[in-house]
């Protein structure tokens, strides 16, 4: 894709999805909702996070092993894997 096409794509995107500007704030004060979330933390979040961390580490290991095996069996897949990283 050359520079002209790139600029054309940028213009099309900007026409389709106008910028938010980011100058607005929330319509309400979010502190009460934040307090409710903090109150939920000890009951729900703490045990769940430790289980999730273990699950995640186990899953990451299996995924990594799968990728290494794939790269060993099909070396031609390495560029494709790198592209999607």
């Amino acid at each position, binding site marked *: 894709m050359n520079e002209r096409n*790139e600029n054309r*794509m940028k213009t099309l995107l*900007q026409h*389709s999805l106008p*910028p938010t500007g980011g100058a607005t704030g*929330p319509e309400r004060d979010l502190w009460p909702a934040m307090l409710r979330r903090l109150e939920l933390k000890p009951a729900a979040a703490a045990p769940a996070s430790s289980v999730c961390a273990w699950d995640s580490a186990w899953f990451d290991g299996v995924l990594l092993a799968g990728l290494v095996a794939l790269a060993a069996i099909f070396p031609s897949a390495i560029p494709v894997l790198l592209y999607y990283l």
Partner: protein
Amino acid sequence: MQNEANNILHLFRQGDALAFERLFRQYQRAVYSWILRITRIPAVAEDLTIETFWRIHQAHAQFEPLRGFEGWARRIATRVALDWLRSQRTERELSLELCAEPASPAVTDAAVTAEIRVQIAQAFTRLPPKLRVAATLAVLEELPQKDVAAALGISVTAVKLRVFRALRLLRKDLERQGITP
């Protein structure tokens, strides 16, 4: 004044609840507007602002006061928004919501019909989230690439690469639908 601000940051690092509230009230607007730039949906931005501050609260011990609060909060907010984008599956509904607000007549290309704009918005939501966030911030919001790089925790070159890949994938997607950009 500066001393008081530094004091609040140090108290927050030690887990002080009042310091956290002060920081929340001071930065909720900035965090919300940053997330809104990425998600483009106000209700979602509100929920994700709460999620961001919850993660900030959980990570208070890792906060480094010398590096400032806003940049740190922005990086966490970007990760939260990215997680949300990854969790989305309802592409059509989302993209319709994204382009519900029409572009101003001054910037609307006459050749680009409303239908094509919707198709472009839908194609945009199909991009991999990492590329989509980079393109949203750098192209749609026209933010400096340095700021985008800092928020994503990558180099400016990587931002340029992600934007380029996003535009190329978008172009291919549109061509598959018979739209020649």
